[in-house]
C-alpha cells in the first residue's frame, strides 16, 4: 500500500510521464505495445523520439493494461447534488414549473469539493457535462474537469448548451412545441429589434431579458438546444422545429430514437442515451429496444452514452459495455464516452489519445468496460489523481470492527 502511494506521488510530481507496455485506445483503433508521452497538461504523442523522453518518469504497465482517453459523463448533476432527498443540497433545478430559464448557469452552483467527485473518478472519468433540469427551458449546462478545488479551476466551458424538456408535463406536447417555437421566434425578434425592446416599443416577448440573451447563441447555432425526449413522435416534432428554425439539436434520452435513425443521421443530430434503460419505463418508451445505440450508430447517428446519474456516474463503463452487448462496436462505445461527447459539447482537443490533446488519460488493468478491470491510473489535465474516495476511507475505518469485551 505504501509503495503504491509513493509511486502515485512520484507521478504527481512528474512534469513528464512516459507510459509503456499497455494497449492504447487511439482514434485509429487499439494499438498494442505503443508508448504514450504526457507532458504538462498535454499528450505529447505516441511512440515519441527517445530524445524527447530523457527526463520523463517512465511508467511500465502490467501486461494486459489498456490506456484509454479518460471518460466524459455527458449528462449528470455531479457536484450539483450531495444527497438527493435533502433539498438544501440539490442545485440542479430552478424549481419553477414550466418556466423559461435559459439564463440559469449550473456552473454557478458546482461544488468541486462534493464527495461524489472522487467516487466518479474511480470509474475513469475526467470530465462531466453538468446539466440543469426542471421547467421548459432549464438553463445552461457546463463542462467541468473532475479535479480542481475551485469553480474557476474546474470549469472548462461555462455554457455548452441550453437544456429543454419534452413530454411528462400536464399540457399537450403540442403546447411545448408551440412555446419552443415562440421562444425561438421571439429571440430572433429580440435580436432584430433590441432597440425597440429597450424603449418599450415592442410587444411583450416570450421570455425575460437575460433569458432572451441566453437564447441568442442557440438561435445563432453556436450552442445546441439539448432536448430531453423519449418518444419517437416527440423527437420527430423537435427535428422539424430544428429544421424550421436552423437551431442545432441534441436529443437526450431517445428511447425510441431508433425509429428515426435515418432522419437523425441526415440531420446529424446526436443522441445521448442510457443503454441500461430498456423499458418500457413510461408510455414514452413503449418501443424502447436494447439495441437502440447499435441501430442509431449503424444509420450514422453520433451516439453518446450516459448514466444520467450523479452518485453512480462511475458506472459509465458498465453502460458502454451494455451498448456493446446490444451490438454497438467496442471502439464506438469507447468513443461514445470520450471523443463523441467532446465533439458534441465543443471540448476541443479532448477525448482522444493523440498528440496535442489534453492529458485526460485512464489506465485499466484490462478491458476498461469489464468490471474485472481495475483503474490503475488517472490523469486529469496532466495531474495524476489519487485513486481514493470517502467510500475507501469508510472501508478503511471499518476494516476492523470493535471487538466485544
Amino acid at each position, binding site marked *: 500500500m505504501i509503495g503504491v502511494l509513493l509511486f502515485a506521488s512520484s507521478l504527481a510530481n512528474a512534469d513528464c510521464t512516459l507510459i509503456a507496455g499497455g494497449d492504447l485506445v487511439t482514434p485509429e483503433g487499439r494499438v498494442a505495445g505503443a508508448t504514450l508521452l504526457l507532458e504538462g497538461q498535454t499528450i505529447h504523442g505516441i511512440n515519441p523520439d527517445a530524445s524527447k523522453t530523457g527526463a520523463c518518469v517512465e511508467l511500465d504497465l502490467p501486461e494486459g493494461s489498456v490506456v484509454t482517453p479518460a471518460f466524459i459523463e455527458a449528462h449528470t448533476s455531479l457536484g450539483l447534488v*450531495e*444527497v*438527493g*432527498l*435533502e433539498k438544501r443540497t440539490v442545485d440542479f433545478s430552478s424549481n419553477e414549473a414550466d418556466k423559461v430559464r435559459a439564463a440559469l448557469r449550473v456552473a454557478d452552483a458546482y461544488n468541486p469539493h462534493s464527495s*461524489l467527485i472522487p467516487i466518479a473518478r474511480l470509474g475513469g472519468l475526467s470530465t462531466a457535462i453538468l446539466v440543469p433540469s426542471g421547467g421548459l427551458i432549464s438553463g445552461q449546462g457546463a463542462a467541468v474537469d473532475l479535479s480542481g478545488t475551485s469553480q474557476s479551476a474546474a470549469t472548462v466551458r461555462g455554457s455548452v448548451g441550453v437544456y429543454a424538456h419534452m413530454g411528462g408535463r400536464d399540457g399537450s406536447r403540442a403546447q411545448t412545441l408551440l412555446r419552443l417555437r415562440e421562444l425561438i421566434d421571439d429571440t430572433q425578434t429580440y435580436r432584430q429589434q433590441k432597440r425597440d425592446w429597450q424603449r418599450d416599443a415592442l410587444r411583450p416577448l416570450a421570455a425575460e431579458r437575460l433569458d432572451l440573451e441566453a437564447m441568442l447563441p442557440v438561435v445563432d447555432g453556436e450552442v445546441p438546444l439539448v432536448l430531453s425526449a423519449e418518444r419517437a413522435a416527440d423527437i420527430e416534432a423537435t427535428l422539424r422545429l430544428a429544421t424550421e428554425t436552423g437551431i442545432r439539436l441534441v436529443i437526450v434520452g431517445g428511447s425510441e430514437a*431508433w*425509429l428515426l*435513425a435515418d432522419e437523425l443521421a441526415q440531420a446529424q443530430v446526436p443522441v445521448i442515451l442510457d443503454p*441500461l*434503460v*430498456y*423499458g*418500457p*419505463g*413510461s*408510455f414514452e*418508451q*413503449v*418501443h424502447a429496444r436494447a439495441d437502440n445505440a447499435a*441501430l442509431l450508430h449503424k444509420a450514422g447517428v453520433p451516439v453518446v452514452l450516459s448514466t444520467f446519474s*450523479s*452518485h*453512480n456516474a*462511475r*458506472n459509465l463503463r*458498465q453502460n458502454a*459495455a*451494455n451498448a*456493446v*452487448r446490444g451490438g454497438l462496436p467496442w471502439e464506438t462505445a469507447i468513443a461514445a464516452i470520450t471523443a463523441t461527447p467532446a465533439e458534441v459539447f465543443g471540448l476541443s482537443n479532448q477525448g482522444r489519445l493523440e498528440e496535442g490533446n489534453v492529458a485526460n488519460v485512464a489506465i485499466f488493468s484490462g478491458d476498461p*468496460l*469489464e*468490471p*474485472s478491470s*481495475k483503474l490503475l491510473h488517472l490523469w486529469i489535465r496532466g495531474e495524476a489523481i489519487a485513486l481514493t474516495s470517502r*467510500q*475507501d476511507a*469508510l*472501508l478503511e475505518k*471499518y476494516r476492523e*470492527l470493535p471487538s466485544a469485551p
Partner: protein
Amino acid sequence: MLAPTLFLFVSCATTPSPTSAPPAETWSLGSHEAAGKEPIERSPSRAQESVIIHNATVLTAAGQRIESGHVVLSEGRIQAVAEGAPPSIDGATLLDAEGGFVTPGLIDTHSHLGVYPSPSSRAHSDGNEATSPTTPGVWAEHSFWPQDPGIQRAVAGGVTSMQVLPGSANLVGGRGVILQLLPTRGSRAMRFPGAPETVKMACGENPKRVYGSRNSTPSTRMGNLRGQRSAFASAQRLLEDWERYEHDAARHRGDKPGPQAPKRSLDEETLIGVLRGEILPQVHCYRADDMLSFLQLADEFGFSIRSFHHALEAYKIRDILAEKEVSVSTWADWWGFKLEAYDGIPHNAALVAESGARAIIHSDSSVGIQRLNQEAAKAYYSGVHAGLNVDENEALRWITANPAWALGIDSEVGTLETGKRGDVVVWNGHPFSHYSSAHVVFIDGVRVHDSATNPSPWSDFLTGQEVAQ
C-alpha cells in the same frame, strides 16, 4: 430449511398439500391461510424438457466450478450435474452451451415488479397502502399485475424467482409474495410452490417522511419504533388469546358449549405469523443503528429477522448480523440518494460475506433486475480490488443460494444440485462479464427464454404494439 408448518401456511400453486384440510374444531394460524384455498387458476401445464446441457463451464453456487461439465434436466428437476461428455439418455435432447456457462436461476429478494409495473402509471401504482402506517393485512399478491412487461425482461436476464414486496411507506407494509417468473393470468398461480409467507417492514426515513409530512405519526425514528412495538404488542395479546382458546378447545367435552374463538384480525394474523416464526420478516433498513434498534425490537418480541433490505451500512455491524444469522440484501453500489444511504460503499457485500454473514444483491428496480449478474459482478470485483477475501462461488451465491435462503426456498432452488428444481441459466459467457447474456433460461425444466428465438410478448400490454423501423 422448510419447516412443515410453513407448508401449511400457503396455498401451493401447483401441488395441493395433503395437510391443507383445516382441523375439525380448532382454528390454527397455519391452516387459516391454506384451508380450502386451492388456487382458482391452476398453473397451466407446460412442456418440461428432458435436456442435457453440455459443453459448458458449470458454476453450481454450491462450491464447484466444473470446467467441462453438463447438467441434466428432466421432469422439472435437476437429474445430474457432472464433469465430462454428456451421457446418452433416451428421449433427452442435447443443448450445446458452446463453451458458455451454466448457473442456477437468479433470485431477487426485492422486486416491485407487478406492484409498480411498467410503464409507470398512476393507475398501476399499487405498491404502498399508505393510508395507515401499519398495514400487515395487505398482500402484495393482491396488487401484482401479471401483465407487467418487466417480468419477461427479468427472465431474459436469467431471473427465475423473486420476492415481490409492498413499498416502504409503512412501518409494516404487508405481506410479500415469492413468485416463479412464469406467464399466468393471475398472481396466485405464479406463487413459488411451498414457499413461506413473508412480511415487509421498514425503518428509517421513509415512514417518518410519508406520515410526518401529513402531520401524523410517525414523524421521527422514535415514532417508527413506537408504531412497530405497539403493533407487535397488540398481536402478542391476540396470540395469547388464541393459545388460550386452543388450549381450552382441546380440552373441551362435547356436552357443554365450546369456548369462543377470538375475532379474526387480518392485520394481527400476519404479525402473529412473525411471532410464531412462520412468516419471514424482510426489513427495509439502511443505517447500522436503525438495524440495531430493529434487532432489539425483534429480541423484545422473540422473533428473527430473515433479511435486512437496502442494508447499506451492514458492513458496520457485520459481526452482529453474522452471529444473529440475518441475511443482508443490498445493492452493488447505490448510495447517497438520501441521507440514510450516504455511507453506502461498494464493498458492503464483500465485507459482509467475509464475516460469514449471508450477502445478497437485490435489485429493487425494474432495470436492475434485468442485469442482476452485472450487479453481483460489480460488488464482487469491488471486493477483489480492495483485497477482500471473496471468490467467484461466493459472489454467485449473492444472487442464487443466499436469496433462496432469505426466502425460505433454498431446499428447492439456488444451487445446481441433483433433485432441485430445474431453474437453470445457460450464459453465452461468464455471468460476471458485462458482455454476457442469458442464452437459455429454464424454470422447472420449462424453457422460458431462448435468445435464438424471437419470443412473442407475455404481456398483454405489449401484445400487438410492435412497430417496424
